[in-house]
Each structure stands twice: as structure tokens, then as C-alpha cells.
């Protein structure tokens, strides 16, 4: 059985207990127990369709958007129950930001993209906005590339730039956790390298949870790795341990490329 506790002796920020998830009748996640450490990068790996994205989307309740989803079990963010009806989803999503597989800049200027989260929260103070834009774009390592065209459309950017704008947009609202669902799968190697570098920087301020099907990437960027298979958590441990000496035979088969 997988280890339940955080493999590192850090404080846990997200604690998943006995999580089961169904798409209609089909079970996509079964009895997941996982503790995600604070200010570390946690990677979810596993073969396609094993439930990585589904698990990730539980963490900011994006699965609410799909009518047929049923969730049972508990996820706590700093001790607060995420799945409870009392949880304010809007507030949860501000605390747990998300970056998607396909970069999805809004058809607005770069500036407006970055401050979108602030605008909808009703913040319109020019000083605050300007400051947030610079901080977020620097945080996403794209400030130098776009500082002279903040008011041009974000749709004119390249894929890698657009993805970093999306990261800037996510960190502009100062979340505690950033979820990334295969953020590099649509990018070329150079853009991918930039994002990976950026993830190293991000963990100084945020907790990062990243889904990837690229094991080298998981090995490069993450501190802890969770291996999922057919909706079950097979193994969760320090990345170093998983990639050098996994406890579970299935994990070993997967990372050595014998299946998946």
C-alpha cells in the first residue's frame, strides 16, 4: 500500500483522505490518500487515462463544472474541508490557482490578462494593478519579453510565452497552491526548459502540483512524486526515491518504460 504521510518531514498543505470519484457509474479515482507538502513541487505521473487530471481538478473543485461527477472523501486545505458545502468555491479557486495543458490567454491585452483575477475581485486601483502586473510577470520570467507591449493583445504571443502569461495570471492573485496540468505538453523543448526553470523559482513562494506524462520532467522538477494507475495511487514518495529505488514493482515497471 502506498504511504499516506508526506514523504518529507514538512508540513502538509493539502491532505487527501479516502477520495473516491465517479464519472456517472464509472469510477475514476479509488481511495486516494495523499498529503501534499507545502512549498514543494509534487508531480503526478502515470499512464494516460489513469486519473491524474481528475485528481488535480479535485484540488480546486474544477470537477464541479462536470455535471455527472460525484465525489466522496475528504480533501483539506490547511485543515479546511474543500468538499464541504460551506467552502466558498470562489475563494478556494483564488487560493488554489491553475495552469492548463493548452495555454488559454484571454482575448485581451497582456496587462488585462494578468490582472483578470484582481478585476473580478473588484480591485481597480491603478497603483496596485501596475505593481501586480510587474511582480507577476517577473515571477513568471516573462517581464523582459513583454514589458514594452503590455497593452497589446495576448493572442499575439508564442505558445511558450502565452503559457507563462497564464502562469503570471495565476500567481497575480497570490494563491497558496498552483496546479499545473501538463503545462509543457504543447511546447517546444526550449519553451519547456524555460517553464521548468520557472517551476524551480515558483516553489520558493508557492506549493506546486504538476501533472506530467514526461518522467524526465517529473524527475527534473519535482520533490515528491505520486504514481497513479487505473485510478489508484500506487506509490507516493520523494522523487529521488521513486526514480532510484521504488517500493512497488508496478512503479518500477512504469518508470523503466516496461509499460505505459
Amino acid at each position, binding site marked *: 500500500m502506498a504511504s499516506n504521510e508526506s514523504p518529507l518531514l514538512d508540513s502538509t498543505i493539502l491532505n487527501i483522505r479516502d477520495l473516491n470519484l465517479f464519472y456517472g457509474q464509472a469510477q475514476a479515482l479509488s481511495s486516494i490518500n495523499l498529503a501534499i507538502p507545502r512549498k514543494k513541487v509534487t508531480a503526478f505521473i502515470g499512464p494516460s487515462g489513469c486519473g491524474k487530471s481528475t485528481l488535480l481538478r479535485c484540488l480546486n473543485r474544477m470537477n464541479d463544472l462536470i455535471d455527472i461527477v460525484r465525489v466522496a472523501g475528504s480533501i483539506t486545505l490547511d485543515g479546511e474541508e474543500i468538499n464541504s458545502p460551506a467552502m466558498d468555491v470562489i475563494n478556494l*479557486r483564488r487560493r488554489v490557482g491553475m495552469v492548463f495543458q493548452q495555454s488559454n490567454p484571454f482575448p485581451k491585452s497582456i496587462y488585462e490578462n494578468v490582472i483578470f483575477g484582481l478585476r473580478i475581485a473588484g480591485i481597480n486601483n491603478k497603483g496596485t494593478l501596475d505593481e501586480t502586473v510587474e511582480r507577476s510577470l517577473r515571477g513568471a520570467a516573462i517581464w523582459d519579453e513583454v514589458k514594452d507591449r503590455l497593452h497589446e493583445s495576448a493572442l499575439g504571443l508564442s505558445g511558450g510565452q502565452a503559457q507563462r502569461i497564464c502562469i503570471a495570471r495565476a500567481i497575480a492573485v497570490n494563491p497558496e497552491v498552483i496546479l499545473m496540468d501538463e503545462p509543457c505538453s504543447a511546447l517546444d523543448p526550449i519553451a519547456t526548459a524555460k517553464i521548468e526553470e520557472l517551476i524551480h523559482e515558483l516553489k520558493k513562494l508557492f506549493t506546486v502540483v504538476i501533472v506530467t506524462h514526461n518522467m524526465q520532467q517529473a524527475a527534473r522538477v519535482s520533490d515528491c512524486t505520486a504514481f497513479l494507475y487505473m485510478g489508484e495511487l500506487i506509490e507516493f514518495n520523494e522523487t529521488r526515491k521513486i526514480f532510484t529505488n521504488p517500493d512497488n514493482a508496478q512503479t518500477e515497471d512504469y518508470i523503466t518504460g516496461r509499460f505505459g
Partner: protein
Amino acid sequence: MKHFWLRGEPQVIATAAALGITLLLTLTLVIVVLVNGMGFFWPAGVARAVLKDGTVIAGEITAREMGQPPRLQFKVGNRDLYGQDFRWVDRAEITSLSYPSDLIVLERKEHGNFYGFTKTVSVDGEQAAAGGDPAQRLDAAWEQVAGKSKTASSLDKQVSDLTYQAERIRQQMTRLSHDDRQGNTATIAALKGRLDGTLARIDGLAEQQNGEATELRRATVTVADASGTGKEIPIADIVRIYRPNSMTVWAKTMYYLERLRELLFDEPRESNTEGGLFPAIFGTVMMVLLMTLFSLPFGVIAAVYLREYAQEGFLVRMVRIAVNNLAGVPSIVYGVFGLGFFVYGIGSGMDRLFYPERLPTPTFGTGGILWSSLTLALLTVPVIIVATEESLAAIPKGIREGSLSLGATKFQTLTRLLLPMATPGIMTGMILSMARAAGEVAPLMLVGVVKLAPSLPLDMRFPYFHMDRKFMHLGFHIYDVGFQSPNVEAAKPMVYVTTLLLLAIVIAASSSAIYLRTIMKKRYTTRTF
């Protein structure tokens, strides 16, 4: 041969041919309308023809028939003398054809054009001396009379203002006596006094007007048609005098522009076959705008609910099918519905509630521009719903997810991202619906369009927008002038001109909408990788 089919060339050719035929048909239609419509105001030469039997006729040659025997159609005018405007003459009958420069055309307020020659001009009952050029004297006299009738029209304005006041007083009186006859006796009596005063002033003005009119009508011109039959015409009845055979190109251009101005800005005359089309243009544009005002918000909101909020399921699918199929309902059915529901249902109810004192004269309980726009809004709202739904559906899922993941509510996502992004598509729907509404006639005939509306639905008098008024419409005008007027042949060019105008309005409206849409599209879809 097999190769030829496999390469797919024939299929490409077939698609190109289909497009080509469509374009060709449309182009032919537009060109026919353009040629006939634009040429109508250009002053054609007036021919004087001597026939074998000795009769002489004068008129514009309006058609040539190549049959056996070949014939010419003359627009001879002088309806009051001949009883009809047109005359067919066998080519072989004509012994000589000339274009005398002193041939004159008088456009009259009644009986259509007069073609002939000026004889004498008499002002104030005095025959002017035989010397001098009668043509010049006619022009001078006409000039003078036109100036005087301008001052007379200021009297018209006064009379109509007073009539309006009298009408309001009368309405106030009926309302008061309707509410409480006993209690309001004193006020009613006072109002009665004011009403009598106003009516007396109207009578006075009318008398003055009559006097001036008779005075004006004393200036006359005696003209003779081609065969010499004389006719005395009051100069006040002449709208325009011209001699097409001696006009320079410049003069003809000025004449053309003047006719164009009249068309766009003046009232119609002679049961709509002459004069301007201003009320019809105004009515069409205002009705279409009102229609858009109703159908656009309504359709967009309905589509947003269907696409963004409603649970996808059997019911929503049925609604969607129903909406799509509404387009197949004959438009006259909408007219019948509008008449039954809006006019007799809601309109009569409004009259009983708000205007009981005017009953049995209906205010909203009869066709009007409000009900017409609502009926057409009903007719075009499916177009807007479908267009909006399609463009909402075309927005990538990532946009919604991105917005929601930043803590936006569904409504914020909708107003800040989805609707702006859907705007170009919504505008396409709006363009289509406006074009459809501008050309629709059948339902309007039941719910408020008329041949001749006494006043515009928008004027300077409180409450400015008169939603209950009937209005004129270019499409109905085509039907009425082309097929219902007593003088169909004379009205034919007017049909082309009206069609041209309607086309121009639709094209102007859609071009501006398309321009706006291009700007929007640029804003939302410059994406490069």
C-alpha cells in the same frame, strides 16, 4: 476518364458553378433595379410625332417593341385631357419625329405631367401683353407664386399646431368627464371655453388660407398640347417646369439632383406615385431599429440561458429544434399572431386600462409601429438565438475554465469574456435579422403599415415617440404603388426606385454592422503561434 473523376476536379467545378450561378442571378437582379431605378429621374427628351392620319402627339418614348408591327410606347401625359398617360403607336404610322426645343413639361400637383407648348401667361386676371417670350414670363410667374406659397405653408404650420392643441383640450375634457362628471363641471366648462377659442382661431386662419389660395390660383398659364388643344392651368398647381429638349447636361444633372432630394426628403403625392418617399424611408428605418431593440437583447439572453445555464437534456434539445424551425413558419402567420395577440390582446387591454376615455376609438388597440416591430422581432429572434448560441459554443473550453479557475463567477465569465467574444457572431445574426425585417411586408399589412400615414411616428410633440401610430414602409410601398395604384404603368419606375432605396438601406445597415464586426474580430482573434 476514371482518373479525371478521382482527382476531384468535377466536384470543384460544380461548386464553382453553383456559386457562379447564384452570383449571376443576384447581379442581374441588382443591375435591372439599378438601371431602371437610377435612370428614372434623368430627364428624357420629349418627342413630337406626326402620324399618318394627321394627329400630332408629344411625349417621352418609354418603350420600343420589335414585334409585328413594331410599336413605340409614348408617355404622353395630359391625363386630364386624354384619360391615360401612355399610348402605343405603330412605327409605320409615324411620318415625322422631332424634338422641338420649346416643348415644355409641367409637373403638376394633380393629373401627372403636362406635355405641350406655352401660349399665354395671365397674372391677376390680366392677360400679359402679347410681346415678350411666354416661356420666360411663365418661369418668372412660377418663381413668384412659389415664393408666396412658402409663406402660406407657415400658416399651415400654425393651423396644425392649433389643431393639435384643440385635440389635447378635447382629450382632457373627455378624460375629466369620464372620471367624475359632477365634480369636474367647472373645469370642463373652462376647458370648453378654451376649446371654442382655439377652434375660432383655427377657423380664422383657415379662412385666411383659403383667401390666399384663391388669390394664388388667379395666376394661370394657358398651354396647348401637341395637337393644339388649349388648357388653362393655375400656376400654383405646377410643381416643376422644364424643357428637356433644350436642357444642357449640367441643367439635367441639377434637375436629377433636385429630384433625388425630393425623393429622399419630401412627402409623396398623387397616391404615392409621385413626390418623395421620406415617410416610408423613415418608417422602415425606425421600424427596423425598434425591432432590433426588442429582438437583440431578448434573443441574446435566451441563447445565453440555453447554452450556459440550462441543463442539457431532452427539453433543451426540443426547445432548440423548435427555435430552429420557427424560421420555417410563413411570415403571414406571424402577422396573424401579432394582430390577435399584440393588437387585439395586449393593445385593447392597454386601451381599457390607460385610455378608457378615448374608447371606442382605439389607441394601441389597432395596428401601429410598436406592434409591427414586436411582430417582426418575434419573426427574427430565432436568427439571433441561433447565431448567439453558435458563437458561444465556438468559444474554446479553456477560456471558461481559465476564468473560473481564477475565481470568477459564471456571470463574470459571461459578461467579461464570453459575450464580448461572441459579439462578432451575434452581429452576424443581427445583420441577417435586420435585412430580413427590412424586406418583410406580409405581416406588417396586418399590424400597422399603411399606404399613407398622416404623421411620422417620431416628431417634436410630446411624447415624441408615438408608438401607437401607423407608419409607411418601403416594402409595402412597392406592393401598393406597383400593384394597387390606379395608374400602374406610370408607377412602374417608382417601383424600381423604391426597390433601389430599400436595397440601399439594407446595404448601408449591413455594411456598417459588418465594419463594426471586423473591428471586433480583429480585437478577439489575432492569434499566432
